[in-house]
C-alpha cells in the first residue's frame, strides 16, 4: 500500500546558497509558496482590472474575499483593527490558497509542515507583542492582569493568563498543521485501500466502499481547507484585538 507519509516529503529542486553551515534549498514547497503568492496577486489584480462599478463575476469574487476578511477583522478587532487588515488578508489568502492547492491530487500541501504554520503563527504573535508594546508601553502587560480579581488570587490568574498567551502561537500553528496533515493522511490511506482491495482478488468487490469514503473525505477536506483559513484569520483578529485593547 502507498506510504501515506510520502506526500509530505520535501523534494530538492536546487541548492541556492548557504547561511553559515546551513544549505538553503529550493524545494517544491518553496515553489508552491511562490506560486500561491503569484496566484493570489494575479487573482486580485486581474479581478479588479476592469474597476467596474457593477462588478463582473470575477471582480465579485475578489470583492467578496476582501469584504469577508474585512468583516472578520472588523467584527473581532473593531474599526481600529483595520490597520492590520493587509496582514490578516495576506494570512487568510496565503493559507486558503495553499490549503486548496493541497487538495489537488499529487500536489504538495505547504501548510502540512509545522514550521510553516508556526512561522505564520509567529508573525501574528510577534505583531501582537510588538504593536502592543509600541502602542501601550508597559500597559500592554495589563493583558496578563485581569481586573476585579482579589489580590491573593492574582499570582494564579497572571500565571494562567501568561500560559494562555504563550500557548496561543502553539495552538494556532498546531491546529492548522494537524488538520492538514491528518486530513491528507486519512485521504491517502482510504484512497490506498482501493487499489489494494482491487489487487486482492475477490476482496475487490469491497473496493467501492473506501472509494466512496475517499470522495466524502475529499468534500470534508475542502471544507476543512477553507474553515482552517477562516479560523486562523478570526483568531488572528481576536489576538490583534488584545494588542489594540490590552485592558480586559
Amino acid at each position, binding site marked *: 500500500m502507498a506510504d501515506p507519509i510520502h506526500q509530505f516529503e520535501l523534494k*530538492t529542486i536546487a541548492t541556492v546558497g548557504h547561511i553559515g553551515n546551513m544549505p538553503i534549498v529550493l524545494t517544491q514547497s518553496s515553489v508552491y509558496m*511562490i506560486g500561491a503568492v503569484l496566484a493570489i496577486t494575479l487573482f486580485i489584480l486581474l479581478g479588479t482590472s476592469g474597476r467596474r462599478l457593477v462588478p463582473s463575476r470575477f471582480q465579485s469574487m475578489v470583492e467578496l474575499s476582501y*469584504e469577508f476578511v474585512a468583516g472578520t477583522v472588523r467584527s473581532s478587532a473593531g474599526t481600529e483593527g483595520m490597520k492590520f487588515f493587509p496582514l490578516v488578508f495576506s494570512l487568510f489568502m*496565503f493559507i486558503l490558497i495553499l490549503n486548496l492547492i493541497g487538495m489537488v491530487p499529487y500536489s504538495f500541501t505547504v501548510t502540512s509542515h509545522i514550521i510553516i504554520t508556526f512561522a505564520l503563527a509567529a508573525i501574528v504573535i510577534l505583531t501582537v507583542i510588538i504593536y502592543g508594546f509600541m502602542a501601550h508601553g508597559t500597559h500592554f502587560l495589563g493583558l496578563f492582569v485581569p481586573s476585579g480579581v482579589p489580590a491573593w488570587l492574582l499570582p494564579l490568574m497572571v500565571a494562567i493568563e501568561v500560559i494562555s498567551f504563550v500557548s496561543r502561537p502553539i495552538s494556532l500553528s498546531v491546529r492548522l498543521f494537524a488538520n492538514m496533515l491528518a486530513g491528507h493522511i486519512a485521504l491517502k490511506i482510504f484512497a490506498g485501500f482501493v487499489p489494494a482491495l482491487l489487487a486482492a482478488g475477490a476482496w475487490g468487490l469491497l473496493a467501492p466502499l473506501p472509494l466512496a469514503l475517499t470522495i466524502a473525505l475529499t468534500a470534508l477536506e475542502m471544507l476543512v481547507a477553507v474553515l482552517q483559513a477562516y479560523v486562523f484569520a478570526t483568531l488572528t483578529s481576536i489576538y490583534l484585538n488584545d494588542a489594540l485593547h490590552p485592558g480586559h
Partner: protein
Amino acid sequence: MAQPVQTSTGAPAPGGHGGGFPPFDSHSFGSQLVFFAIAFGVLYVLMSRFALPRVAGILEARHKSVENDIEAAAKMKAETDAAIAAYEKALMEAKGRAQTIAGETRDRLAAETDAKRKKLESELAQKLTDAEKTIAASKAAAMANVAQIAGDAAEAIIKQVTGEAAPRATVDAAVAKAV
C-alpha cells in the same frame, strides 16, 4: 532531484528525527523559513501596497456613487415636492382670485342692474304721474264740457217745457248742484 532534503553532512542533527517524518525534519526548517519569509513578505507588500488599495478604491468608488445617487434622488424628490407645493399654492391663489373676481363682477352687475331698474322705475313712475296728470286734466276738461252740455241741455229743455228762456246763470247753478 526528487530526493528528500538532506543536510550537507547527511548526518541527523541532534534531536532531529532523521528523515522519519518529513514535517518534523528540522534540517529542512531553515530553507523553508527562508522561502516562507520571502514569499510571505512579497505577498504582504503586494497586498498592502497594490492589491488591497485597489479593491478598497473600487469599493469606495461604488459606495460614493451609490451615495451620490441617493443624494441626487433625495434632492430631486425635494425639488418635486417644492414644485408640487408651489403649484398647489398657485392653484389656491388662483382659486381665491377667481372667486374675488367672480364676486366683484357679480356685485358690479347686480349694482348696475339695480341702478338700471331704479332708473327705469323712476322713469315709469314719472310717466305714470304724467299720465295721471293728463288723465286728470282730460277728466276736468271733460267734466267742464259735461257741465256746459248739461247746461245747454237744461236750458233747451226748460225752453221747450216752459216756453220761455231761463236765465243762463240760474240754469248753470242748478246743473252744478245736480251733477
